[in-house]
């Protein structure tokens, strides 16, 4: 009887130890997993905040190129902002041109102003060091764009006449056709056929330095497939088309830029009206150079991003430039 009780007690003890051990292990494992997840989320939020700060700094220093060391995480850019893991930063005034997805530990930012004709906004370009930008077709426009590009070890750009440029081992390729050498169904250059479909994109540029049209393409098997069309206004937006790999992203940034142009133009319009009223009140002939017609043209054309409005904005910008020069020549207050 006593032996039986002892045997049962030993077995019960073992069961008890196993059960408690399992509970302790499960408890600590779940704590570790939860901590790891929250740590990852916390890191992503930290990176998002840091990127936001970097973009602010880049935005206010136009014409600069900055190399930033970041942890190797996936950064995704979209129309309304950017995301690092679960952390998302909303950007109402999206002014960042970038590939949809970048995974690198060295980000390169480049900033150029967009002036039509006064500075409206600064565009920030996020250069993917894994991307090779191939400009195809040596002409005045392509050479002008190529000359604008800053030299940097992480910014891989070449200007060639033949689309079948040598593959130098880059993970992604962006082909920019200035010679019209791509249409829907055009065969991919041989050296890039082996790339994954998502890693090769193209854009066809038709126009001059001030404006033109864009056609975006993506790789599907061995051919290019059209993805969308758009337009550019001024070289800084053309460079944006070179940097983004999706037509949708490009259009989003340009629509936000047009919205900003509308707002900034309305500020200049009111400013010019105030200056006109001032000169009128003192009988100064300078009021002749402060009519708001050209600004009104730019303002109404900037309500919507399309080709006709781009031409109207250009016409208004040129006329405004002349008007501004006239004001300067007659020692009147300048519009901008």
């Amino acid at each position, binding site marked *: 009887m006593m032996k039986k009780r002892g045997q049962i*007690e030993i077995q019960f003890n073992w069961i008890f130890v196993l059960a408690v051990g399992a509970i302790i292990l499960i408890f600590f494992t779940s704590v570790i997993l939860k901590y790891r997840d929250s740590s990852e989320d916390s890191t992503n939020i930290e990176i998002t905040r840091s990127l936001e700060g970097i973009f602010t700094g880049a935005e206010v220093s136009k014409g600069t190129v900055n190399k930033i060391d970041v942890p190797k995480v996936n950064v995704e850019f979209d129309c309304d902002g950017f995301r690092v893991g679960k952390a998302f930063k909303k950007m*109402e*005034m999206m002014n960042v041109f970038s590939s949809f997805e970048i995974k690198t530990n060295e980000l390169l930012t480049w900033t150029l102003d967009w002036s039509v*004709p006064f500075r409206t906004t600064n565009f920030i370009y996020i250069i993917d060091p894994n991307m090779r930008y191939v400009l195809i077709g040596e002409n005045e426009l392509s050479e002008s764009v190529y000359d604008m590009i800053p030299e940097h070890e992480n910014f891989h750009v070449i200007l060639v006449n033949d689309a079948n440029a040598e593959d130098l081992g880059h993970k992604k390729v962006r082909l920019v056709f200035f010679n019209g050498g791509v249409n829907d169904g055009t065969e991919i250059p041989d050296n890039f056929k082996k790339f994954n479909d998502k890693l090769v994109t193209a854009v066809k540029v038709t126009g001059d330095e001030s404006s033109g049209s864009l056609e975006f393409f993506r790789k599907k098997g061995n051919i290019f497939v059209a993805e969308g069309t758009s337009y550019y206004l001024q070289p800084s937006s053309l460079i944006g088309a070179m940097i983004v790999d999706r037509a949708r992203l490009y259009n989003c940034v340009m629509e936000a830029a047009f919205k900003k142009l509308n707002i*900034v133009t309305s500020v200049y319009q009111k400013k010019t009206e*105030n*200056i006109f009223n001032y*000169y009128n009140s003192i009988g100064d002939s300078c009021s002749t150079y402060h009519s708001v017609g050209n600004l009104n043209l730019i303002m109404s054309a900037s309500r919507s991003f399309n080709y006709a409005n781009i031409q109207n904005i250009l016409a208004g910008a040129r006329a405004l430039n002349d008007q*501004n020069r006239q004001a300067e020549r007659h020692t009147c207050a*300048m519009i901008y």
Partner: protein
Amino acid sequence: MGETIMVLLVFFVLVLLGFIFYINVMKSNIEVKREEIKQKEAIQVAQRAMFLPELQCAFRNIEANDCVDIMKLSAAADIILENQIFYFDKLGFSKIVVNEIYPEEKSYLLYDNSLPTFQDKTTTYLPIDIFDPTLEEHAFGIMQVEVYAK
């Protein structure tokens, strides 16, 4: 058996004490981080406000740093108010006032999205040149940027 239970009890008490200590350390780290983020946010808003093309002086489209065009300033206040949603992600919960302090004393409210109840407020003062393009006169001013944290 009883001994095993007591050992486990002591073990869990120690683990609990360890967690409490860890949480307290984390709390103070979070406070420090929070303060840092608040300061960075305030600086970013101030930077963005200073470099708004809606305000900056420009001569032949070349911008002058730390300079506000008085004609643009008067116009920008109303326009920014009409487009407050558009400016929210740049300027957030903040209040931006341009105060002319010499030769005259005037105040221009540029942006006001302050919180009625807030946990913290960081104020940054930026000295600026206020330029009148009609009279070609300069005045000295301070741009006051108040950033609110919930």
